[in-house]
Every structure is written in structure tokens, then in C-alpha cells.
């Protein structure tokens, strides 16, 4: 990320493309899910229609501060994807992403409503489930490639996946947690069968709910961005390969979402940490031994 005149058009491109991709993938998710349940499902652009409709609705709130937190969560989600898209440090993007997640959790707590507080607490558990893996991903990427920077991804000699197969498995595992796909849809579910109503988003309406939807699009883009980095190297065509892998991974997340029942939080936490410790530990050990 060097300061140049190209920075602005690139930033604009990232800001336009990211929600577009995120929204389209969400629409794709809903169609696949519907087909798995033998329904026809909504049109591909439905998520955009939903957001437009939410923006037009009269908003209500339970107190004055909740919407600040939701707005800040959106701001930092956008900022994360911007940093990542412009080629900044992976760890720094992860930290920015963490701020967004914390603001979202605080939004849940700040409503002081039982359902959204339980949702916020569970969201924190979910962060505990995926955060170590995302950090280990960055550490592994650095050990394998010698750089933390997204910019350098396109000048690598080989795709990092060759050296990070286990970390990739771990990453796929925690993306399920991050995207709140079943069995890890503890804090809120996209499907209408959550035992805590709409979890962390119970008290959000209108524009706040629209912001949450958009945050989710950026979350998807960031998560798939991490997958993308695993498969690109100096070969220009590798971008196509990486994009294909991203789509396959997202598809498999949707399948998993529909094939599992929700875990209890203790099981979710223990299972995630076991997978992370095994996948991360073994991969880093192998990297250390064989470089």
C-alpha cells in the first residue's frame, strides 16, 4: 500500500465491489438453502431489496446509544475490507476487524434486553472460537511467505496453501463460526428457528438492521479474502483459481449450514479450540521443521 494517485480509484473500486459481492453471495446462499429445503427461494438480488426496504422503514430504538455502536461496527467493517483490499498488513486488518466485532457486541449489550444480551454474550463466545485461528493464519502466512502484506501476495513464488494445508482447514472451520453458520449460529441465526429470538439483533430495526445486513456482506468478503490469499502467487491466472476456491468454500459453508444442528456453546468452544490447536500447531511445527 504505497501512497499514490491510484489509491483513490482503488479505494472506490473496493468500496463498490465488496458490498456487491457480499450481497450477491448472500442471495446465492438463500437460493441454495431454499433448494436444499425443496423451496424455490427468493431472487438473487433479494438481499439488496431487503436492505432498501429496511432503509425505508420507520426505525425504532430501545435507547439512544445502540445505534452509535452499530454505526461504528459498520464503519470499521468497511475500514477492514478497505485496508485489506488496498494491500495493507494482514494483522492490522485483523485488528481493525476485531474493533468492528467488539462494537457489534457492545451494540447487543447496550440494548440491555435479555435476548440481545444473551446474543451479545454468545457472539463473544463465537469471537473466542475463531480469533486464535485467524491470528495463527496470519502468523503461518508470514512464516510461509516472509511477509504480512497483502500487496506482496502477487509476487510470491508459490501459493501459500502448499505450506499451509492444515491452517487452511482450520481457517475453513472458523469461517463457519465467523459467518454464524450452523452449527455455530449461536448469537443469531439467519433462519427463523433461533431459541433466543433474533439474538444479538433482537432490538434492531430499520436502518440499524440494514447496517447489520451490510456488515454481514463485508464479513463475508473479508473471510473469503483470507481464503483468496491462500491461493494466489505471482502467476496472474492464479487469481481465477483463488476466486474459484472462494466460491467453492462459500458453497460448502452453505451446505454445512443446512446440514448441522446448532452446537451448545461449550461444545462449540471446545471443538473450535481443539481444531485450532491441532491444525495451527501441527502446521507451524511442520513449517518450523521443513521451512
Amino acid at each position: 500500500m504505497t501512497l499514490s494517485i491510484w489509491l483513490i480509484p482503488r479505494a472506490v473500486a473496493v468500496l463498490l465491489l465488496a458490498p456487491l459481492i457480499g450481497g450477491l453471495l448472500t442471495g446465492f446462499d438463500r437460493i441454495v438453502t431454499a433448494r436444499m429445503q425443496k423451496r424455490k427461494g427468493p431472487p438473487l438480488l433479494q438481499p439488496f431489496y431487503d436492505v432498501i426496504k429496511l432503509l425505508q422503514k420507520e426505525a425504532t430504538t430501545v435507547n439512544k446509544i445502540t445505534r452509535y455502536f452499530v454505526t461504528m461496527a459498520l464503519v470499521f467493517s468497511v475500514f477492514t475490507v478497505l485496508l485489506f483490499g488496498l494491500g495493507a498488513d494482514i494483522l492490522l486488518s485483523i485488528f481493525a476487524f476485531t474493533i468492528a466485532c467488539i462494537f457489534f457486541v457492545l451494540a447487543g449489550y447496550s440494548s440491555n434486553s435479555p435476548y440481545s444480551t444473551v446474543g451479545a454474550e454468545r457472539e463473544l463466545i463465537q469471537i473466542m472460537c475463531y480469533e486464535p485461528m485467524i491470528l495463527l493464519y496470519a502468523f503461518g502466512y508470514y512464516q510461509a511467505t516472509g511477509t504480512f502484506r497483502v500487496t506482496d501476495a502477487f509476487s510470491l513464488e508459490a501459493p501459500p496453501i502448499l505450506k499451509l494445508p492444515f491452517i487452511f482447514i482450520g481457517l475453513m472451520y472458523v469461517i463457519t463460526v465467523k459467518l454464524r453458520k450452523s452449527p455455530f449460529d449461536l448469537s443469531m441465526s439467519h433462519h427463523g428457528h433461533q431459541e433466543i429470538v433474533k439474538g444479538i439483533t433482537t432490538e434492531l430495526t430499520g436502518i440499524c438492521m440494514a447496517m447489520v445486513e451490510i456488515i454481514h456482506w463485508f464479513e463475508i468478503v473479508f473471510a473469503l479474502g483470507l481464503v483468496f490469499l491462500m491461493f494466489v502467487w505471482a502467476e496472474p491466472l492464479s487469481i481465477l483459481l483463488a476466486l474459484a476456491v472462494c466460491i467453492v468454500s462459500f458453497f460448502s459453508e452453505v451446505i454445512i449450514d443446512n446440514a448441522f444442528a446448532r452446537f451448545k456453546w461449550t461444545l462449540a468452544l471446545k471443538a473450535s479450540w481443539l481444531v485450532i490447536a491441532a491444525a495451527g500447531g501441527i502446521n507451524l511445527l511442520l513449517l518450523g521443521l521443513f521451512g
Partner: protein
Amino acid sequence: MEILLVLIGLPLFFAVLVMFARRQKTLAVIIRLSAVFIFAATLVFVVLHYNEIFIFDLSGNAYIPTVMLAIDILLAGFIIYMGIKHKSLFVSLLALLQIGLFAWFELAADHTAAQSAQTVYADKLSLIMIAIVGLIGSLICVYAVEYMKDYHNNHGEYKDRRRMFFSILLVFMSAMFGLVVSNDLVYLLFFWEITTVCSFLLIRYNRTGEAIKNAFLALTLNVLGGLLFTVGIVLLGVYEHVTCINGLLALDSSVPLVMASVFLIACAGLSKSAQLPFSKWLLGAMAAPTPTSAMLHSSTMVKAGVYLILRLAPMLGSNAAGITITLIGGITFFAAALLAVTQHDAKKVLAYSTISNLGLIVACAGINTSESMWAAVMLIVFHAIAKSLLFLTVGSAEHQLGGRSIEDMDGLYQISTALTMMLVVGIAGMFVAPFGMLISKWAAMKAFVDSGNIIIVMIIAFGSTITLFFWTKWMGKLVANAHRFAPTSYVMRIDEKVSLYLLAAMVIIVCALHPIISSAFIIPFIEGGAAGFVPPIGMEDTAVIIFMLLILFLFPIILMPIYTKHQVKTTSVYLSGENAGDDVSFRGSMGEIKKVELRNWYFKKLLKENYLLTGSAAVCAVIMLCGFFLAMGGLFL
């Protein structure tokens, strides 16, 4: 030299003066004056000695060692007496052993060649420590004026010993100044012992059974550390004829005896900075009034421990002693973070978080690369600021809430927005980007990955996440706008205001200015060992960090007029349609009105505090013993 004497002498002078203050008003004036003077003297010292390494030779002086030995004997006598009086003979025995060994070393053992020409040696690291002790310490003293008044109003049962309390706080600061400029280990040990006794006196302040018990725990573990320290010095002095740190660092690190002494002295550092297995004393220390905790946790005591380990760091690294210290630091970082999750008591969460963060500093020192040393010094600076702010704010909140359980803090917003904001700033300063602790932790992460030590890399990945968990759930309680308390007319007093606002501003400003601190102090300190060092956080990343700070503070301000203009309808929270008039009560299944109770998660079933603490302490004790034998060259293997 004069200015150094002023720096050490000023707190001592005021400490004596305080004892003569008959009326509370006089006492308050003296404390405020002392704080202003110490604050100013600290700044003057740092500015005046910025351009040079301040070295002073006291080796020809025969009086100072005699006086120090006399005071040491007095201190030891006091400890022995206290031990006998309170039937804690073990601590008397330790103190007796230590002073016997030390007196023999000073009077009878042959170490004439051991005197060093660099008795006093203040480089950039010393300057940073002086700034932390002087600036933060004096703010804590100012805060304590009002706090102690409230404390005695609330606790009529305790005898008012405020004069002694302030006097000891000042002596403590004086000893810390001496400690961080001493290069001769005998001098360093002298100040070290003073801080041990001061912390004992501060912890037992209210003389309840609990306070005395905890004070003795602190005393025992620290005297044990002091004994290890003495043994280390005696070994070095008698066999290597070296007693100063710079001389020690020039020794051959492959000699088992040298490494054994380095390891012993580092263990003294571990005990002072409450690392496992010595952690328990710092938890007990919270029985004391809050300013004491703020002092012990942020600017003095525990920082002396990590300071000493940082000084020894060039002897550590990838040898047995280095790996052991790194492991102990790492395990402490992880275990203390887990333990913090289980606590309701705000001060206990802060205590575990201190232990955890110091573990990270110790691990950085153990690794001993330029990057990790940079991270360690940054951690010391940022931790001192944020932790003192947190302790002092919790102290004020405790007086308002009538307790310090985090569960009650959802009512704090109604009592004081300012206090809530300070707590949020302090907590954010401890773990989240773009604040200081995260910047330092980021550097530590890079250093750990570069070191190739996989265990420590795994530990920091999991440990940081747990840290995030317990801080965020606390923050969640603070922003949960409960309606439990009616608004009160709480106004912050001037002393509280000055210290809290200054500290909160420091959390933010020092974070924005960290590149200056890095290039002005930390890089020169590190370059003493490695020229051409590039800090782990580059300019471009720093720019992004400052940009994030701007977003964080400007955005809500930009949003405020927009959101004030576009008011939306306020509704009640969702309680399955059974709301009973307000947001906090509902109709139960039998039609009765029930209150909503929202509680946080503490993992009490999953994590048992006692087992976890004892277990991790046992693991660290075993690692420490193994490390000692390995450092000695595998004597028993």
C-alpha cells in the same frame, strides 16, 4: 549528580514532612505540593539527561556502602521482628539468611575487585522508568488525597494512619528512582529491599486479619526473591569479581556459574513482578486501599521486577535460562488471562490482567531480540498508564456503587458518565486497536513468530483472544444502560479530576505519539546493542493506527448532530410481549411481576480458580527448577 539527588531526595523530604502534618488540610496541601514538585523534577531530569547516558562513579566512597548495610540490617531486623510477632517464622528465617549472607559478603568476603566504576548508570530505559514512576506516581498520590478521606468516612472501623500511608508512598517512589538508576547490583538490591518493606507496610494498612495475612504473603514471596537475588550477587562477586549489571553483561554466557546467577537474579525479578509461581501475593495486595494497588500495579513494584529482567535480557535468548524465562512468562500470560475471565471483582480482574501482561513482558525479555525488547518497553509504558487509570477509576466507582463487582457496573452510567467513559477508555487502552497495548502486543506477536518458538506463538494467539473476551464483557456491562439506580448528584472532586483526566488523556495522546517515544527513547536504548534497528511497526502502519484513532473519536462527534436531529421512536425491549410497564420487569407465568436480571459469563464451572492457579503455579515451579539446573549446565542430568 545533584539533580539525581534531588529526584531521590524530594520524595524523602516530603515523606518526612508529611509525618509532621497534624491537620488533614495541611496533609492534603503537602501531598499536592509534593506531587507538583516530583512531577516537575521528573520532567527536568528526563530533559536534562536526554542527550547523554548518565554515569556516576561511587566506587571510592566508603560511607555509602556502610550506611546502606546499616539500613539493610535495620530492615531485616524489622522483618524478623514482624515475623516473630505475627508467628510467621518462615519469613524471619528467610530474612535472617539473607542479611547474614549479605553482611558476610560486604564485610568478610573478598570482592574488592568487584567495585564498579559505573555505580549509577541512567540510559534511555532508566529515563523511561523514571518518567513512569515520577509522572504516574505523583498523579496517584494526588488522587489518594480525596480517596483516603472517603475511605475513612466509609470505613470508620479502621484507624486513620494516613500520614504513614502517604509517607510510605513517597518513600516507595524515592526507592524506585534509586532502583532504576543503580547499575551496581548491591545498590539495586538495597532499593529493592526498601520496596519490599514498603509494599508490606502498604498492604497491611487497615490491619484487618486479611490485610495482615496478605501483607505477610507478599513479604514472604518478596523476601524469598530477595534471598535469591543476594545469592546471585554473592556468587557473581565472589567467583567472577563483578557486581554491576554492565560488568555482568560482559561475562561469558556459556559459563554455568554466570548463568546460574543470572537465572537466580531473574527469579527475583519474577517474584517481584508476581509471575507464576509467585503470583498470589499480588492478588492479596488488593486488600489495601486502591491507590496502593494502583501504585503497585502500574508504576512501581511489579515494574521493578520486569525492569530487572529487561536489564538481564542480553544474557537470555535461546539458551536454557532464556527459554525458561520465556516459557514462564508465556504460561503466566495465558493462565492469568483465563483466571481473569472467572472474576466478578473488578480489582481482581485488574490484578490478573496485570500478572498476564507482565507475563508478556517477561516472555519478550526472555526471547531477547531487538523487536521483542522494543515490544517489552512499549508494553511497560502503555500498561503503566492504562492500568493506573483503571485502578483509580474503579476506586472512585467503588465508593459510588458501594462495591466493586462488575455485575453492578451497569448502573455506573447513571451515576457518572465521566467515570464510565474513563473506564471504557482504560479498558480500550488495554486490549484493542488502535490503542497502545495492542500496538505493543502486535510487535510482540511479530517478535514471537520470528523467534520460531511455536509454543509461545500458540500461547499469544489464544491468550490475546481470552484477553479480548474478559475486557469486552466488562465493557458490555458498562454500556448496558440499566435502570437500576436513580441518578445521583455525584460530582468529581478536583484531585480526582486532575489525576483521572490527565491519565485518560495520556492513554490517548501517548498512543498517538508512540512513534516519538519509540525513536527518542526505545530505539537508542536498543541500538546500544544493535545499530540500525528498524522498529517492528513501520511508518505506514503507524499512519493507519493514527487514522483509526481519528475515526474512533471523530466519527461519534460527526454522528451526534445527525442522530440528535433524526430522533426515532423509543420502544420498550422485547420481553416476549409480557412487559410489565418498563424495560426491566415482566409478567411471569403465574401473572406475578418479575425483575429482569442480566448476568455476564464467568465460566465458573469450566474454570476453577483454585485448581487453575495452583496447577499453573506448579507447572511453572517445575519449569523454573528444570531451568535452573539446565542453566547451570545440566549438573544433574
